[in-house]
């Protein structure tokens, strides 16, 4: 698929994921995006770091909501009321809504994951419309620095450990995190310098790669835009597409048209992954 098709598909999937609170639709978007990602993931790219990030994001969202929101009829437990912020009832409804928020995060992250895990940095640049090309390069270069960030963290924590550092509470981590952040900033400045030295920042750029477009791209773009338009249209028309489990938990409503819209996002997952790449 064309890089621009990937960009449109990702934006459409994110639009759907954030335009509704309904966990059914969010779950369908997450599943569709996961299927697409697994289908197109190039050999050698690892899913584990993303999976860990998704689990942490979802768990944090659920935890924060259940601790901070004390609304709901079904009380699971109580924390002492004199505890600031978290004191009070922990309810099934707040747990359900927190999990729904986490699911939305997972769906949105999976929707944008192909931009870094399937596409090459130059593909992201090629996908951007002219006025946003520099934004694309900023995104592409920052993605390049991510792997270096991990290596620096390992190197610094190794070196500090051998100098006698041991993790003892949050403050002790400053001896690792401060050098890692400083190194990341220095690396960013070096990269900026290297880009400047190669003429970046002049007038509008030309592109080395010719734009490719096929019927498959047209089909995927039509399905993705149709899906996003469906959700936006329903919302503008005032048709209920959300789910709000307070004060009493209930099953989320399901609209067949919106389910079909979510499933349309799964189209790239059924294409042969080699096509157009």
């Amino acid at each position, binding site marked *: 698929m064309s890089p621009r098709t990937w960009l449109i598909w990702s934006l459409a999937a994110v639009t759907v994921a954030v335009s509704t609170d309904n966990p059914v639709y969010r779950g369908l978007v997450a599943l569709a995006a996961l299927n697409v990602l697994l289908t197109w993931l190039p050999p050698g790219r690892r899913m584990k770091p993303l999976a860990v990030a998704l689990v942490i994001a979802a768990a944090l969202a659920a935890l924060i909501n259940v601790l901070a929101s004390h609304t709901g009829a079904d009380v699971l437990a109580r924390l002492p009321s004199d505890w600031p912020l978290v004191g009070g009832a922990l309810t099934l409804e707040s747990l359900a809504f927190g999990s729904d928020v986490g699911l939305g995060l997972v769906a949105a992250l999976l929707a944008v994951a192909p931009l870094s895990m399937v596409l090459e940095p130059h593909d992201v640049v090629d996908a951007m419309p002219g006025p946003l090309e520099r934004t694309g390069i900023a995104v592409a270069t920052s993605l390049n620095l991510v792997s270096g960030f991990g290596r620096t963290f390992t190197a610094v924590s190794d070196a500090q450990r051998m100098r006698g550092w041991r993790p003892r509470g949050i403050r002790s981590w400053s001896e690792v995190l401060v050098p890692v952040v400083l190194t990341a900033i220095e690396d960013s400045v070096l990269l900026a310098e290297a880009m400047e030295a190669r003429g970046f920042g002049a007038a509008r750029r030309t592109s*080395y790669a010719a734009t490719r477009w096929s019927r498959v791209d047209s089909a995927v773009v039509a399905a993705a835009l149709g899906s996003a338009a469906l959700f936006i249209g329903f919302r503008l028309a005032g048709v209920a597409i959300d789910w709000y489990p307070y004060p009493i938990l209930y099953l989320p409503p399901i609209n067949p048209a919106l389910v079909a819209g979510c499933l349309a996002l799964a189209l790239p997952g059924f294409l042969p992954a080699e096509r157009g790449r």
Partner: protein
Amino acid sequence: MPRSIARLEGVTYWYPGDAPPALSAVDLEIGPGLTVVAGGSGGGKSTLLRLLDGLVPQFHGGRIAGSATVAGLDPLRTPIPQLAQRVGLVFQDVETQSVYGTVEREVAFGLENATLPRTEMHERVDEALASLSIEHLRGRRLATLSGGERQRVQLAAVLAMRPALVALDEPTSQLDPEGSEAVLAACLRIARDGRAVVVAEHRLESLLASADRLLQVEGGRVSGTTEAALRRAVVSRTSHSPEPLEAAWEMIGVDAGPAGPRGAALLEGISLAGGAGEVVALVGPNGSGKTTLLRTLAGLLPALMGTVRRPAGRTAYLPQNPGALLHLPSVRAEVELTLRRAGPAPDVTASAGAMMAAFGLTHLAGRYPRDLSSGERQRAALAATLVGSPALVLLDEPTRGMDLAARRSLAAAVHSLTERGSAVVIATHDADLATELADRTIELRVGRAIEVEPGATPQTAATPPAAATPQAPR
């Protein structure tokens, strides 16, 4: 006299907020051919190269006096994107200068910025790859390339702009000998094409024979110098062959590291030992597992199989890019931190002062380490690592970016440590360092460790591996 490609007249440059000038009253002229820029760390070599392509002062700011002409343009005032089409700069770190993820697109990045038509871009990319004999890398991802290959890709990216002057800032400091040789050979080819090639390097031996001009940069002042003078500056080798006292550390049948290209552990069946007071050098190409072996020996990486034994007492470990560990407000604070962490010390201030003096850091003791040049930072990290009396010292590429004075300081520090009974293991691409310091040399090849006979040259990575042989200290 050959035509001039770059001319500087009375150039003095101050970085923002820095009192002494980084370059002082520089007058020089550079013609076609190879110009080697030598000098100590922090002397102004990198600043001089950045001046040639306008990054100084346009990117870094600061104040500048004097005049300059490079490839017919004024680098002090001509916009850098315009200069980039006449002057190319290759940086030291192969990883932080890459923008894209694949070779072909990386080479084309500058051409896209120059708004060239697509057909011309393709022609120039072909030409640049061919000129460095790396056409076979065209479709590869940068992450899969060796350091030498990546540096040649960066050089190709610069050559694609067809510059009149190409500057390279310590381009081989992170490369193994094979990669260094390929990059320097490429530099010589470009120089023979009639362009000006300006290379700042600490390891001058391989460049001196071919240099058309040698510039010495010290304390911001630039002077022409002679080959003989530079040859005298090359570190002298000393005889050093202490008898090890006893086995201090050993690895028996160790498998370690992530899966390598063959799907097995990066290191397999490693059996090695080193004595107290003995220096063992680990050599081998990039990716052969030297760092993995050091980290396993340090206890930072668990052995998948086998036994690792370290001596009682502190293990000092210097990682690659050691400057990354520095985070305190002064060099002195960094050195003292290690001493305090190591346990009760009789006089922390005096010990720290002696170590800083050993590495020529006394005048920099109060400076913020990250404001220092890369070579000075390397020395500060070494002082902070080696201070005290570690029982085992593990050094990963300690001479990266080091000038000759710093190499001598390192050699003296290692001698001092071994005399006090420390066991030392050094992973290095620096053949001179290995020859000078090591009592034994171990080559890592395809996951195996093979002892190099005294006086023999380590083999290349392409040579089939011999069976792993347990080695004990002599």
